[in-house]
């Protein structure tokens, strides 16, 4: 299974490439009202979407940058291209995909993955979904898996009913930015009672220096349905800063089960600012399995709003912060209904001067009786130039909540390293093994080929061989 999707080989260089693409359409650097109109015009969108974008744009311009996390003021919003279109139309068949783009995907291993067993592929090249295919059996089940732009045209009713309901444009400055200039991303609809037998997967790549990427993902899982969605990212390495601002909305209708897995490995110049949120209705289960190893700075707190009785939330968040990186990640669970459950597990590793921050929010609102919630945060620091922060917010407004929270921070035990070295491992190998063990709570939730890939990523991080 490993060979089918050999995304990360031992040489990092394999990913550190970019192709010179002739962009057919792109906006000027910087963001104005005209840019937003231009993007909407390129896409021939319905008017309501243009109006939505413009309202979001106004909000983005008004809203100050958040100051509770640092470094965001280094983003130069005027020096970013907000929309690029690598080809004129979406390709239905692999043969029609332009060769240069195809070559990029070849290196990423997508065609093999598709040929073998993957349920569907949505590959994002810069700002547009250029390639998308859904296995026939999924189509027969009525599962919709396509680019978000396409879904806006083809499934206008279900799209409009849910778009922006989980993450409103005004939620934060970056959700407003995404809402104004979004392009690409995946749309998934799973009809009532349908269980998608294999994970749906999308690969994302940023290409083009100073290209922003603003994908928008909307997943609607109807009553009693079940789906696992996997998102993994690799990106070429550039010297100047790149911006990735995404919004992911998940609607888990009564009795459904949704798992969303992310392996985030942006290159170390990317600002990765993502709003991910799910609404969980009665008897549904939502799981965020989220790992962050790349980017210069990631700000991301996958959230679950438990809106219906007996809903369950499960969040596993893992972060590795190396040199020059700040992983500002965490999780949020908001209990709005009785008999809801949540579990948050966070693991972070900081090394070589990296900084890992856990920020979490656990809220039990009035009316949410009989809630059971737990939060567990562990941080490992590999040297004394790195930093680890833990900021959990716990806000309980009912009298029968059972909530526990624990956090620890520490270094690798010298005894463990000594033991492994006495068995013939080098110090680095020993540390690597201990870190992999520490992160296992995450790895064991992954499909096997992803787990192998993730362990390789960690190994590369540990060797300091990532840029």
């Amino acid at each position, binding site marked *: 299974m490993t060979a089918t999707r050999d995304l990360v080989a031992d040489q990092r260089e394999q990913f550190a490439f970019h192709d010179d693409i002739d962009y057919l359409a792109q906006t000027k650097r910087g963001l104005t009202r005209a840019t937003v109109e231009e993007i909407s015009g390129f896409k021939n969108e319905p008017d309501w979407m243009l109006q939505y974008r413009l309202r979001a744009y106004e909000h983005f311009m008004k809203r100050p940058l958040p*100051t509770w996390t640092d470094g965001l003021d280094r983003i130069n919003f005027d020096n970013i291209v907000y929309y690029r279109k690598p080809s004129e139309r979406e390709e239905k068949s692999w043969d029609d995909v332009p060769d240069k783009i195809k070559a990029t995907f070849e290196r990423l291993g997508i065609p093999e993955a598709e040929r073998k067993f993957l349920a569907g592929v949505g590959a994002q090249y810069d700002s547009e979904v250029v390639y998308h295919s859904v296995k026939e059996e999924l189509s027969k089940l009525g599962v919709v898996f396509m680019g978000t732009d396409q879904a806006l045209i083809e499934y206008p009713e279900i799209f409009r009913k849910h778009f922006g309901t989980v993450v409103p444009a005004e939620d934060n400055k970056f959700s407003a930015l995404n809402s104004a200039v979004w392009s690409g991303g995946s749309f998934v609809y799973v009809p009532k009672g349908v269980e998608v037998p294999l994970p749906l997967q999308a690969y994302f790549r940023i290409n083009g220096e100073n290209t922003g990427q603003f994908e928008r993902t909307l997943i609607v899982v109807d009553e009693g349905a079940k789906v696992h969605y996997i998102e993994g990212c690799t990106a070429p390495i550039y010297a100047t800063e790149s911006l990735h601002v995404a919004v992911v909305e998940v609607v888990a209708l009564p009795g459904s089960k949704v798992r969303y897995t992310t392996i985030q490995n942006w290159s170390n110049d990317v600002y990765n600012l993502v709003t991910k949120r799910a609404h969980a209705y009665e008897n549904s289960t939502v799981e965020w399995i989220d790992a962050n190893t790349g980017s210069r700075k990631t700000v991301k707190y996958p959230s679950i709003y438990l809106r219906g009785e007996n809903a369950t939330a499960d969040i596993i968040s893992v972060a590795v912060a190396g040199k020059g990186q700040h992983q500002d990640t965490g999780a949020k669970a908001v209990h709005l209904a009785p008999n809801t459950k949540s579990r948050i597990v966070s693991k972070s590793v900081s090394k070589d001067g990296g900084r890992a921050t856990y920020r979490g929010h656990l809220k039990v609102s*009035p009316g949410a009786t009989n809630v059971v919630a737990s939060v567990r945060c562990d941080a490992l620091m590999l040297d004394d130039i790195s930093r680890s922060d833990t900021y*959990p917010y716990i*806000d309980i407004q009912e009298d029968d*909540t059972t909530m526990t929270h624990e956090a620890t*921070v520490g270094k690798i035990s010298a005894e463990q390293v000594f033991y492994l070295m006495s068995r013939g491992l080098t110090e680095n190998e020993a540390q690597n093994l201990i870190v992999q063990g520490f992160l296992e709570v995450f790895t064991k939730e992954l499909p096997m080929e992803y787990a192998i890939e993730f362990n390789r990523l960690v190994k590369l991080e540990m060797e300091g061989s990532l840029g």
Partner: protein
Amino acid sequence: MIDATPEATPAAPVRPTRAPRRAPNELTFILDERLVESAAARAPDWLAADRRAAFARYRALPIETNQLYTTYVDLRMADLAAVIPWEAPAARPDAPGPALPEGAAGYAALTEDQIESLALDDETRDAGVIVDSLEGLIARDETLARRLLGDQASLPLDDKLAQLTRAGWNQGVVVHVPAGVRLERPIVIRWRVGEPGRGLLTRTILDLGEGASASIVEELEASDGALDRTGAQALFTGSLEVHLATGARLDIASIQNLAANTVAFQHRQAEVGEGATLHWALAQLGGRLVRSRVDNRLAGNRSSVEQVEIIFGAGDQLFDLTSYTRHTGRDTTGNLLSKAALMDATRSYMKGLIIIEPTAVGTDSFLGEFGMNLSRQARAVAIPSLEIDQPDCRRAAHSSAVGPIDETQLFYLESRGIDPEEARKFIVLGFLEPVVARVPLVSAQDTLRELLEAKWDAGAAAASAAPAA
């Protein structure tokens, strides 16, 4: 509600009079510069400069400088626009004040406009221990006064309310224990405040020399003129500025049972020297709105602090408590525990931050925040945070839990023939016992137990009198 107005009739249901609309971070009390200048005019130059510098910081600072906590500030219940600070009290009376409480080595009793008593037993006085007002200290030993009162770092420089106190204080007490002196019995400091429409701004300084040891019981009580929560509000601001030299050991217990019309802003900061040990036992019962901050600065190698804090709330009280534990020395220990039992519509914000600096190798630090919501209207917020720059530590952890009264404990007690209501009371008082047990004076321990029990009984009586929801 425990203090329903007696004149309330069925036609006019008992409801808290809503405060006027204002931003949660708006401070309605404004310290008049003329007041600072008039105090400065009576003070030596260095102290006048200290007040003016604090006043400038007070004016420049926002109410909360830590971005982590800006969403958990709520001063809307504090209606202090009409509050007028007291003038400094007249010189201490010649007549001897009340006798020392039984078992105490020293006693300072202060009301808003008067120093009732400043007393030490002979043995303690002969050992060189000083208990005095701050004016008395300046007159007695200006060098010592300058070291203690003029130490800018003795209160957080980034805290508006701490700087408010520093700029405008109108009363104060100092306890100085010389090097090597070990007091067996505690010194009691009692403040009685709450006159409607008035503000008392105080500084309390505790200074222990090398190898000294002492214990302090601080009692904050309602004065005779204090009112219930519907009356005009009073303001109390108080500091506890602790200086522990090498090897010193200090136990501090504080029992806060101010009147329901009183808004309290408290700042406690300790500089803990090499090998020194500090124990805090803090009980928060009274007041309308209490905003408190404790700063533990573990500067000396092998210094340690243990802090236990309880909140027992009823009615619509808000307890907004923050603690900072900063480890800078090597092999330092911090052990902090906060517990809140909340009746009625009380709120508690328990915010704690452990900071482990790069120099703090070998740190052992723990922070626990536990809440018990006894009513569906109660709200417990816990934000136990860590900022760690040095991983070479023995322990760096926090834990937090919020839960109802444990059904199995209740069942056990009931199976032993204890009435369910009585059983609930035992469990809640047991939850709060850790602070009671740490009060270093038997009579004060008894007082605290009685206060907690009375508050529970009042809450239970109100609950049974209220119509079924």
